[in-house]
């Protein structure tokens, strides 16, 4: 783990976290999603993913990529993404 953190920090210049929209669940998204990847992945995949689409993406993070989040956290993340980054109504 140390190797990873040293490796990453040498590459990285700006201290800012990519910004996501404020709203219920924002902290949960930043704490969990941003552990492995920038939240630019969220903005990049908006606003075309529906609630089911975001659910599939979060599910993939758990089943394919080994994210340790539980059902409740996953549901909170999906709700945030669908609300803030779902299709425009």
């Amino acid at each position: 783990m140390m190797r990873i953190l040293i490796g990453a920090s040498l590459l990285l210049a700006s201290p800012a976290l990519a910004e996501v929209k404020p709203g219920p669940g924002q902290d949960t998204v930043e704490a969990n999603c941003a552990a492995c990847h920038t939240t630019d992945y969220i903005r990049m995949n908006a606003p075309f993913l529906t609630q089911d689409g975001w659910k599939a993406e979060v599910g993939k993070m758990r089943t394919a990529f080994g994210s340790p989040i539980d059902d409740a956290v996953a549901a909170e993340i999906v709700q945030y993404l669908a609300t803030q980054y779902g299709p425009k109504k």
Partner: protein
Amino acid sequence: MQRRTVLAGLGSVAATAAQAAQKPNWMSPALPDGTRDEAILVRPPGKQSLIQLTDRPPNYETPINAFANPITANDRFFVRYHLAAVPTMEELKDWSLTVGGDAADRAVKFAMADLKKNFTQVEVTAVCQCSGNRRGLFDPHVPGVEWGYGAMGNAVWRGVRLKDLLAKAGVKSDAVEVWFAGADGPVMPATPPFRKSLPVALAQRDDVIVATSMNGQPLPHLNGFPARLVVPGWTGTYWMKHLTSIEVSTKPMTNFWVQKAYRVPAGMFPVDLPFASQNDSATWPITEMVVNSLIAAPLDGAKVGRSGFTVRGVAWDRGHGIKTVEVSFDGGKTWKPAELGRDLGNYAFRSFSLASGALPPGPCVVSARAVSNKGETQAVALVRNPAGYHHNVPQTLTVTVA
């Protein structure tokens, strides 16, 4: 879990306020709104201006105008990582490459000096293109990294033949695949590390190499320093960066990256060399590229004079070479053959150009389409597939004649 606020911002931002106005020049309006909003021009370490889609893991594409040259400069070459633990140049100083596996006679280990001194050095000019290049142009959109046109590049790769390395380890008759691993890795221990394999028959092909040089220079850090696999004709997913381990195996590789990701509906796209050990009844691994072309100049939305302009671009396929490129100046009603540039080899970009001649004022819709020596043509309509691969619908752009 702690917020890792320190882990963001790989590149320095090259443009800020003026950027919104610039976007139409380097981003297709067909990309998702969110992508057009978050993508920015940056200069990652060791690179000139690239389009940042994400910085962690680093995913940068090459702006279209760089493809006016059929060789993509190292400092404009696109960058693609799945996972964020990119090894530093310091860590890569101790690099070595092991070759072994259950279908090898023995395990051997090579330092960079061994590769340079003890093996024949060979060169191949070949296109490295991300499987998902142009995914962002799919309609309806497909989730993933929303690439525009620039997740590709063409370089002169120099290094040693994979088959020569395999011969040092000895390939047993029951070998099925050759497995590859690189030095980059995941952040979470539970995330599957990125690993890929090739059919053993392809691994023995003369032009599949372990490259230690790119366009006459060491590989850039973010393009796989100090050695990467080069698989001419096959999509970039097989071109393992920071290559550290090669295993000759009696079994097909099993992991997320080969069994779930990088797959296309069975038989949807043409292949010459099937990857039979990874095929199932419904899906095949994505392997060989499809014939395609890109107009690098003029840019969409450009203003041109009535004396006309010259269309310049590149065409490529999966290794048969380019037979013709045709250009239309009237939205696809009529097509004229373009002049082809120097032949850099069947796996390389083939440049093309055609002058429009004098034009009436008003909008002029420009398009290009390539045909390979195999007779394969670009798709007339998008060939939809679940992961958004192999987009090769002819690009259409509009310039204003005034």
